[in-house]
Each structure stands twice: as C-alpha cells, then as structure tokens.
C-alpha cells in the first residue's frame, strides 16, 4: 500500500510528536516542526504520482467546520483528507446567520456526538478554535482563528521556502502588509523565528499590532528600506473593507507605498522569491507582473505545498488519537 513509504522515510521520527491538536505554531517545538515538514515532503512526492491515494485514514471521519468562508483552505483540507482515505464532510456555518458563540459550543458538542476523528475549524474570533477543542474528544486542527493563528499556512510557507532556498536559518524574510489583522503573519513570525530566519515586517503603523517590535521582528514603515537584501518577500492580503475604518486612506495610496512591483523589488536580493497566501488583490498589494512571473512568484507552489502539509498534519495527529493503537492491533 502507498502508506508504507511513510515509515520507511529515515527523517521521519514519529516518537517525538505527541500533540493532540494543532491549535497554533505556539506550543510546537522545533522537533515537531522538523517532523511535520519532513513528513510533508514525503506527501509532496505522493501527490505528484498518478495514484495519489493512501489508505492511512481509511474509516476515519474528518469534518471541515468553517464559520468563515474560505474556498482554498477548505478545498485543500478536503483534498488532503480524501487522499489519505478519510471520509470528509464539509460544513460551512455563516457566523452572520447564526447567533455567535452559543452555536460554537453547541455545534461542537453536536458534531462531537457524531464521533468524528478530525475536526478542521476556521472561526473569525481569536481563540475560538482553542475553546472548541476543550469540548470535543477528537483531534482539532486550527484552519485560522481570528487574528490569532493559521498554523498550516505557516508550515506550508516554510516548506515552500525550504524546497526552493534550502535551510531557512539565516534567510532574510520580509512580511509586508496588513500585519494587524493577519493570523498568517503571527503564525509565520513564530515559525520562521524558530527556524532561524531574520524577520522583518513592513507596514504603515496603522496596520501593525501594538508592540510588534517585541515579537522578534525588525519593523519597517518604508518598503524600500524593509526589502533591502531580503531573500523572501511575503505579501499579505489587504482587505478592502479596512479602507472604511481609516486604517489606510485609499487603495491607490496603499499601492503607491506598499504595493509590490518590480521597482520596489529591486531592493531585495537578486533572485528573491515572492509569496502570497491568497487570495490576491492585484494592483492593491501586488502587481500582476510579479504575481504571474514564475521565476519570482512561489504562489502556485504554496498552494501545492498546502495539500501536502495538511496531509502531514492529519497523518501526524491521527497517530495520536486515543484509539490509534486499538486500530493497529485490529489490523
């Protein structure tokens, strides 16, 4: 069976990874990260074969519970679960249509009674996924909670960088844009710091969280200065609704100062790579000429790595399910 290649991989040591849930990068140690990235590497190979199917999670039930809509993250998790043989159920619960909170716990309890093995959760409130994880028996994966964390995005970003530029330690990486509201930025700051990158964040002060400089990054307000000698530039999505609350005056002013184009990119190292978690606002935070240039943009690679990383996370957490041993004996 195709699952056998996992145990044969020399870099993958299953013994150390003992987490029950993946709620954030915070709480993981370097060994956990290395383990997940190595495991994800093996799934990249599997995903490039004609037969992409494994039976690792056969009989397992995975529920994708999205309180905030997301096409790409949800389909990435769905594909990851299906390629590992799990039964995947997608549930989209609009937060606006239901009364918040009550439904979070109530929905969690209801779903829990259906005995899923994996719950993939996205919610618009920071800490909501952690709260939910306290009420269920299954493994919970944070697919983004408010402005807090989005751990699988950070893992797939790290995997993408590693596969293109090698060891992350010592790389100079800039994260640009709406850091204030970005869970992607928070998870990446934690993860890339752990992996030894030299991190910079670039944004106007109105899009930076207070005391951002204490988060292990150098803070820049000027794009040219911030991009100087960078190896990787990670752009973040600027949500257009932010304009209405005076965080930035207009999209054209924003693009003029913080939109990534070829001129600004010249400040970075030759051969610097550009990333974006998607979906992009072309002409707001990133110029199409850069987004579509395969010699610069890693955006498509990020999407590919996303499926592999999520397979690795599902695989790793399934090994720690309370009934995992039972299953092995039965087989």
């Amino acid at each position: 069976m195709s699952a056998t290649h996992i145990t044969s991989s020399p870099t993958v040591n299953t013994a150390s990874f003992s987490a029950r849930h993946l709620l954030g990068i915070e709480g993981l140690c370097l060994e956990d990260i290395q383990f997940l990235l190595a495991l994800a590497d093996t799934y990249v190979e599997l995903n490039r074969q004609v037969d992409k199917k494994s039976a690792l999670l056969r009989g397992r039930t995975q529920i994708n519970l999205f309180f905030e809509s997301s096409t790409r993250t949800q389909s990435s998790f769905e594909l990851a679960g299906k390629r590992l043989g799990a039964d995947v159920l997608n549930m989209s619960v609009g937060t606006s249509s239901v009364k918040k909170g009550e439904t979070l716990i109530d929905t969690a309890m209801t779903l829990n009674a259906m005995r899923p093995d994996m719950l993939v959760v996205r919610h618009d409130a920071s800490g909501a996924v952690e709260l939910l994880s306290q009420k269920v028996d299954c493994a919970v994966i944070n697919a983004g909670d408010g402005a807090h964390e989005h751990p699988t995005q950070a893992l797939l970003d790290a995997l993408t960088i590693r596969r293109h530029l090698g060891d992350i330690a010592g790389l100079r990486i800039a994260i640009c844009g709406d850091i204030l509201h970005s869970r992607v930025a928070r998870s990446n700051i934690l993860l890339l710091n752990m992996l030894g990158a030299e991190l910079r964040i670039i944004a106007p002060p109105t899009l930076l969280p207070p005391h951002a400089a204490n988060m292990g990054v150098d803070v820049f307000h000027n794009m040219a200065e911030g991009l100087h000698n960078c190896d990787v530039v990670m752009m973040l999505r600027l949500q257009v609704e932010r304009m209405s609350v005076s965080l930035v005056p207009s999209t054209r002013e924003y693009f003029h100062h913080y939109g990534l184009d070829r001129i600004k990119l010249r400040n970075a190292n030759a051969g610097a790579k550009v990333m974006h978690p998607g979906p992009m606002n072309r002409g707001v935070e990133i110029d199409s000429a850069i987004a579509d240039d395969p010699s610069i943009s890693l955006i498509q690679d990020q999407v590919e790595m996303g499926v592999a990383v999520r397979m690795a996370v599902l695989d790793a957490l399934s090994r720690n399910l309370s009934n995992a041993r039972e299953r092995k004996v039965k087989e």
Partner: protein
Amino acid sequence: MITPDQIAYINARLVDPATGLDTPGALITFGNEIQAVGPDLFPSGDAPLSSDQFQVIDCRGHVLCPGLIDMRVFVGEHGAEHKETLATASQAAAAGGVTSIIVMPNTDPVIDDASLVDFIKRRSRDTAIVNVYPMAALTKGLEGTRLTEMGLLKEAGAIAFTDGLCSVTNSWLMRQALSYAGTFGALVVHHAEDPSLSLDGAMNEGEFASRLGLAGIPTAAETIMVERDMALVELTKGRYHLSQISCAASLRVIEQAKERGLDVTCAVSAHHLALNELDVGDYRTFFKTNPPLRAEEDRRAMVEGLKNGVIDIIVSGHDPQAPENKRLPFANASSGCVGLETLLPVSLEHYHNGHVDLSQVLHALTCAPAERLGLPSGHLAPGAPADLALIDLDTPYVFNAASLKSRSKNTPFDERRLQGRVVRTIVGGKTVFERAAVSADSSEAR
C-alpha cells in the same frame, strides 16, 4: 436599661479606620445601633462570657470593624434575574462582610425614574439582608442625550448619579450634569472610557493582546476621558467620583486634580489591584473585565495609589454574568466578574504583602465610601448603625468558586490562595452571616 436587645461583642480587636483606633476591646450594640465601644467597657478585664442581660458573642481576638461598603455593584434585578437578584447579591455581600451595597442603574429598564428607585428600595427592604442604596442614571436610558430628574430621583432615595458602564461622551452634557447636580449637592459617578478609542477592543492593548490576536483597549481611552472630566469639574465646581480607575496615567491626572483642590475621588476594583493582563492567559473569559486588566506597571501603580491616598476607595465591581455570556470566544464574551465575596480577602493581600497598612485597606472599604456618599455607617461610634464585620485576618485557604453565594460564579479568583475572611457579618445589629466551623468548609486550605 439593659434589655435582651443588647449584644456584647467581647474579646475583639477593634479596628476603626475612621479614627485610627486599633485596640483589644469590646463593642455593645443596642437594637440597630452601636451603643458603646472601647477597650475599657468591662473594667475588670474579664468580660461576662454569658449573661442574662446581654447576648454575648466572643470574638476570639478577631478584627471587629465597620461593615464594608461596596460602591460599584451590578445586580440583575430587574431584567436579568437569572444572573443575580437583590436577594442573592445581598447574600453574597453578607458572606463577604459587605453590609451596604450601592447598586448601579444598568438594569432593564434603566433606573432613571423616581418610581424605579422606589421599586429598588422596596424590593431591597423585602428581600435583601444588607443595606441597598441605588444609584440613579445620570442620563435618561443611559443614552447620554438628556439629563434625568436628579432632584426627584434624589428625593426618592438615589444616593448618587451615574451611567454605570456607559460614559457620557457628550462634553456639553457632562458639563450640564456636573453643574445641575450641584443644585442638590449630588455626587456624579462616572465610568471613564472613550468608546471611539476602546472600539471593539477585548483586553488591554499591548504585546500580549497582539500575540493573542485580540483587539486592544489603550489606557488612553480612559485617561482622555478623565482629563476631560477634570477640566469640566474645574469649570463647574461639581462633585465627581471616578467609578473605576485602571491605569497609572489616569492616576496622575487624578493626583493633579486633587492638588488643585477639586472635589474629586476615585475607586479601584480589587481585581485591578490583584491581577494584570497576563492573567487572561489562553483566552480565559472570566478575566475579561471593563476596564480591562492592565499591564503590571499599572497594577503596581494602583497599589501605590492606594498607599499614598490618591485612590480613595476599593470596590468589587461585582458584575455577575451567566455561563452563556462567558463560554464564548474571548472577543464575543461579556465583560465583568463577581467580586462581593472576594473583595475583602483580595484587598487584604496588599496588607499581608506589607504594601499597605490594615487601617488603610479598611479605610478604603468602609469609611471612605461612607463619607463620599454621606452614609451614617462606616465607623465604630456610639449612635452609628450597627453594621459590622468580624474578620479572621490570617487563616489561609484556597478559594473555591463553587462556594460562592452569588447566583453567578464568574470569579477570576477560583483556586487562588487567599488569607483572611469574614466570620460574621452584622447588619443593623443582626447577624446576617456566620461562617460555619472551619473544618466543615470544603474550601479550607489543602
């Protein structure tokens, strides 16, 4: 002259923060008043342990002091009786040594009409076991647009005027309120928060909030409003009390206002003296308060403010919330924590830590609020109301939220190691709370 209405509290450590009295002695109550108090009530030194004439209560050396007066209590009656009623709040108060509670007008409907003040007073008389004094709204419906009928409300029994958890953002209206209240010598109590700055913030703005991905409330949201209020007090010569202070910057503003001779006081909650923003931990909603728990420097400034007298009063900020308002993602959860039953022991931490004298702590809990509100209680003197707390100052224990008498259990102090608690509470000469024998208490130190 001697009747069974007389009760002698003997072998007490009498502490009266109003006079600085701290001496072994005895106190006699007659009916609902204190009749005599002092070290020499029983000259022979051996007080009668039983008597046909007195009812005798042996205080075993515990502290006997005026009952606590809590100036900031939210009660769900009327409108949210599932959170707390006047009856349950008063039982919680009694269990905390609090003999008078000042209740906020943030009810449904809002206490902005004389008939509603009357309702609270009658309801309290019939169901509450401690004294209940209602504050009335400063503006109709707490909407911040029209003044209430302060004169009529005061005659009906409103002890002061406040919009509770709402700030009066309209500076002109606040000026009018401070001016007009002067007609009746009424006290204006204000919650200082600029809502356009606190916006959708869930906790103190700072590095920790940034890491949790929560929107922050800057200290400036409070300080801006306090600065404005001081300017208006100067303009109107009004009587002003800052309902709850939470940060060092606001403290400096109050200090300067007092130096300028303005009629200004302020209160801090017991939890702002004891906790800081880090206690929020991993999104623990019982630590979501309004104003939010601040940085450690601010907490230390609050203790210092209490010590040097810039902060006059300690309040519980008792704000009961039901589980369905708290078992939510942090940003969606309601603010507030119950505090009547932890007000005394949490305040005593600063005495046990050696930061503040015992008489200073008790001053802020008894005679300071009494003086500010013009209440007859808050001191030990013949003729004063027999509202007393008997306090075991030193016994350590682990506080247990399940032991709360309050209908809501949203305390941030569950499992906290505390030292000192009330063993008997007396309101109007009658014992309304007596702690069961220590061994029977499940929350005893382990």
